[in-house]
């Protein structure tokens, strides 16, 4: 019995380690590449080299990566907090207080997820041209302009609603008996109960925002406002790209998202719901 259990355990770890190795391999290549010269990167050199400091110098000499990380942080953090708050309001509202009218609105909102963003870009840019006219702080070439279309997204509303389906609604009745207002029910019952859902939403929103490319590219004009992906793309735009430096820039800028994930995944611990009751 004990042996069988041990075997099972070994098998499980073997499976996990092999899988993780497969998922990690390209990232390993990225890490190794930051120490190699461009020519070795394109050759697929899998061992560390000695070019790290040269690459570091190139990155800091040719790009304003620190500034870009600052911009990306403002956008990603701001967007994450605001978007998950606003979108979860809607996800909760649609699920907990369903009415016919709301279902129609909800269906339409889902529809807005289906069109490729590329098709919305020109009209959206025109809209921001108008916004720039009376509220330049929210318009073209501003970080707020980058965030604005993502404060409320069908994706997050849909996500929160689907998760709200698993939310034990009897908790609301209990809260009402305790005399909580409707807003109190949301902030003091729903939000704390669904914290793993918020953690997941936080991770993906941060990540999507950090990596967002098309919209910042179009709306940002001044390089001082550039976010990380724009700087990296420009770095790789050469006929003679310096891959060692590009890889280093990528590695530096991947770390924040990885860190956020590592910190927030701790919320994914079984039985959280029990502790709130």
């Amino acid at each position, binding site marked *: 019995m004990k042996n069988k259990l041990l075997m099972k355990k070994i098998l499980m770890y073997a499976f996990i380690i092999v899988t993780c190795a*497969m998922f990690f391999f390209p990232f390993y290549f990225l890490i190794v590449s930051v120490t190699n010269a461009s020519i070795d990167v394109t050759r697929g050199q899998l061992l560390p080299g000695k070019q790290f400091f040269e690459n570091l110098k190139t990155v800091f000499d040719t790009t304003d990566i620190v500034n870009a990380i600052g911009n990306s942080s403002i956008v990603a953090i701001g967007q994450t907090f605001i978007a998950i708050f606003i979108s979860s309001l809607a996800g909760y509202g649609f699920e907990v207080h369903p*009415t016919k009218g709301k279902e129609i609105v909800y269906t339409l909102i889902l529809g807005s997820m289906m069109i490729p963003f590329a098709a919305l870009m020109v009209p959206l840019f025109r809209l921001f041209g108008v916004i720039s006219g009376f509220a330049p702080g929210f318009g073209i070439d501003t970080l707020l302009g980058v965030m604005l279309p993502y404060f409320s997204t069908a994706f997050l509303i849909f*996500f929160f609603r689907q998760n709200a389906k698993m939310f034990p609604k009897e908790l609301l009745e209990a809260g009402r008996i305790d005399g909580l207002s409707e807003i109190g029910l949301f902030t003091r019952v729903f939000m704390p109960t669904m914290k793993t859902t918020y953690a997941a939403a936080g991770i993906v929103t941060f990540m999507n925002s950090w990596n967002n490319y098309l919209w910042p590219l179009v709306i940002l004009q001044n390089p001082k406002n550039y976010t990380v992906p724009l700087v990296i793309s420009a770095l790789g735009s050469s006929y003679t790209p310096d891959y060692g430096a590009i890889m280093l820039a990528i590695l530096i800028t991947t770390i924040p998202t990885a860190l956020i*994930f*590592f910190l927030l995944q701790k919320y994914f611990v079984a*039985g959280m719901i*029990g502790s709130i009751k």
Partner: protein
Amino acid sequence: MTEQPTVKKKKAGKLERKRKVMSWAFVIIPTFFIVVFYFYPMIQSLWLSLHSGAGIGLEFVGIDNYKRLFNDQAFITAVKNTFIFFIFQIPIMIFLALVFSVVLNNKSLKFKGLFRTLVFLPSITSLVAYSLIFKYLFANGGIVNQVLMFLNVINDPILWLGDPFWAKVLIVIAITWRWTGYNMIFYLSALQNVDPSIYEASTIDGASVIQQFFKITIPMLRPVILFTSITSTIGTLQLFDEPMNLTSGGPGNATTTISQYIYNLSFEYTPNFGYAAAVSYSIVFFVIILTVIQFRLGREKK
């Protein structure tokens, strides 16, 4: 409410009304944002799709753009390719993501956070880095072919990037690799909302781990599985990054997707934003059909 004494009825009615108003209050701000930043551009885009011409030289053509789709070889090929990716990639990825989330949710597992992070890493690895390494791994003399030949799975190297069939396989592998960890997050978070006592009870009843996976985990996670399958459907139908960076749509047009075609029509060729908008709405059309099917399937089994 019915059990409440009649004296309180009036108050209850007021409360009910208040609650109704409040419930709209929850959705009004998010909906406002969606209307301004999505509905408005969508309507503009729909109107644009009834026009055709180069750049700003657009003329009203009615539904001609939509008629043109049926005779457009490039579009038809892109639709075919996109659907092939959709059919093979989504089930594989969702199943893998479920398995990983269950395995990496195991209470007694050590280094859980590390393993989870490793599986999640691909989705945040920049496209530049990952397309470079994928092309290197899957080159004709690359590691993947060498391993497969060493294991005697194949005799000649597979032309991963040069053969229309294998290039599609490569794209499916690449998307699965990149997005499995991403979808795993949703399952991991949802698993925490499943009452552990259900598992305990079934273990006592003698259910195996695999039985629990199919009989408890999957049914309990149904709403979230529905969410991931629909968002992945949308993601795949709008697939752009992988074919653009790995195969450039090639060989020939074997991996060109609808989104890539939209990109080409808007930026790579002399821009025809009207026709590009019509192609975009074809995606909306396909997604609506697939979403309705998935909602139906998701509901029936309940």
